[in-house]
């Protein structure tokens, strides 16, 4: 049967061709990794990923696809702890990575030492966004406690952004009054002025900019700059308080997953790229403060100098803060229940 013969020859040819292409694939691999991150870093990593992939391809010949997953920072950490196969995690507060050390040993305990700057490629800080012309004359944290003023803040119980705001105000008051009791009083007054507690930073942004609620929005600098750019500089002004918090975004390789999937090298390369001048440049463009002094200097106009303190140096580290302030029955709960 000549006809059947021809078909089988064709099939054999196809098979050989596909085997060949497989062989070719082995020398220049196609790898995909998953970056599990928090909500407002979506735009940042969308810009980072193609630049990294191009650089990685030039260096190794491999094609890398970086998939992104975004959501509330702590919720994302829980997903990874529950088995979402992330190769790297990029969060906005270190407890969300520490939990991955505690649960299932997914991340190496010394993750802070694996990359420069305690594994934080960039930082941001809590600033104020006010309506154009600053009609209420808001200059500093102390203005936010004035009677009759409405302050929009995301919920510290569900949002890293809200937690940083709370702690920034606490640190400011600690400096000002010199006592814990004074700080507590100050923060209680501030939160008495909060009419809406949104679940996350973006929700708070919407409430302030779209729903027209509140006199001032306290949010991350990158979000404030973005709003001023996107929604028109003629509607909002960004105000820098005299003192704020250093909100550095920590990153880590999820070692257990990366080892299993054989992606450890790419994952590490990906995070290292964030610290490279090219990565830092993208970071600055997305309104996060880069670590590289040269890049920061280049974008100095965008990032006015601001005095900041870190959770570690002023407030005794995240786990202590978590326990005294945000745990159930902690200071935040006491403040808002009795307001």
């Amino acid at each position, binding site marked *: 049967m000549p006809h059947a013969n021809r078909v089988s020859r064709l099939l054999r040819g196809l098979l050989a061709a596909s085997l060949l292409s497989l062989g070719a694939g082995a020398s220049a691999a196609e790898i995909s990794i998953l970056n599990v991150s928090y909500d407002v870093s979506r735009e940042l990593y969308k810009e980072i990923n193609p630049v990294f992939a191009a650089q990685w391809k030039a260096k190794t010949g491999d094609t890398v696809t970086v998939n992104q997953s975004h959501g*509330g920072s*702590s*919720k994302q950490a*829980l997903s990874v702890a529950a088995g979402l196969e992330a190769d790297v995690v990029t969060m906005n507060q270190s407890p969300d990575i520490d*939990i991955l050390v505690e649960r299932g040993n997914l991340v190496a305990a010394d993750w802070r030492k694996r990359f420069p700057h305690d594994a934080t490629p960039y930082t941001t800080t809590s600033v104020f966004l006010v309506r154009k012309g600053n009609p209420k004359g808001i200059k500093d944290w102390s203005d936010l406690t004035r009677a009759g003023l409405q302050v929009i803040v995301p*919920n510290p*119980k*569900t949002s890293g952004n809200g937690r940083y705001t709370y702690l920034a105000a606490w640190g400011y008051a600690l400096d000002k009054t010199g006592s814990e009791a004074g700080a507590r009083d100050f923060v209680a007054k501030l939160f008495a002025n*909060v*009419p*809406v*507690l*949104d*679940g996350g930073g973006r*929700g708070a942004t*919407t*409430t302030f900019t*779209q*729903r*027209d*609620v509140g006199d001032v929005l306290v949010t991350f600098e990158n979000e404030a700059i973005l709003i001023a750019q996107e929604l028109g500089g003629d509607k909002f002004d960004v105000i820098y308080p005299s003192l704020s918090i250093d909100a550095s975004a920590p990153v880590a390789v999820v070692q257990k997953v990366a080892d299993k999937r054989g992606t450890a090298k790419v994952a590490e390369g990906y995070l290292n790229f964030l610290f490279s001048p090219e990565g830092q440049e993208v970071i600055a463009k997305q309104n996060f403060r880069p670590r590289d002094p040269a890049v920061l200097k280049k974008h100095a106009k965008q990032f006015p100098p601001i005095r900041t303190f870190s959770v570690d140096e002023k407030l005794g580290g995240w786990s202590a803060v*978590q326990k005294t302030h*945000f*745990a*159930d*029955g902690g200071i935040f*709960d006491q403040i*808002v*229940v009795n*307001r």
Partner: protein
Amino acid sequence: MSAPSRSFSVLPGFRLTLGYTLAYLSLIVLVPLAAVFLKTFTLTFDQFWAVVTAPRVVASYKLSFGMSLLAAAINAVFGLMLAWALVRYSFPGKKLIDALVDLPFALPTAVAGIALTALYAKNGWIGQFLEPLGIQVAFKPLGVLVALVFIGLPFVVRTVQPILEDLDTELEEAAASLGAYRWQIFRYVILPILLPALLTGFALAFARAVGEYGSVIFIAGNIPMVSEITPLMIITKLEQYDYAGATAIAVVMLLLSFVLLLVINGLQAWTAKRTGRSR
């Protein structure tokens, strides 16, 4: 009652369907719920009690259950009116309105929440007229009610509608010929027949409202002691990696809902018996 498996039914498949029912229900409903209960056993009773009776949590029960009952009641009244209009009268665009009723089922709840918030905020289409009257909806407990009414509407309409359709107009005509007024006919002839279905719709709308998160969270304002719903309390626990605390509140919600649904079902069975109709 004799065991149904022994009686000779003309229909096949009893063993298959019962086996399937049990296996499926266990897998989809019972095992996950059991897991919720099991997780709370990692707490001592004192811890459990402290979690579920914290003032913030208690305030959230009041809001969630209170507003859910109120929303279900509103839906019972206006859902009945909607079903009535759809079944009894014909008007242009009736098919369209009939289809619109199901929209709250299909719409992602977050979209509903954002849309409602946009409408009822002080600069929204509706909110701008309510605000000068001193009525604030968005970011207040009233906003929670609006969202819960929205998501619960189809339940009442869709349970009452078929009963209304089956209703013989002859009954009403007979009552009218005996001299009953329109209101009397509605009150003594139609309503008793509809009541079991109405209660079912009420129960469904209530159950849906209690667990609702997506739409409510945007419009509620989420202020502790004032406008925090119970599902938000569960979410905040999860955000703190407190699984046990979260499930403790979930257990309380489950139990409360279960008791309330049981009461409503009992009421429904009672009215069905009283009116001589077993649905």
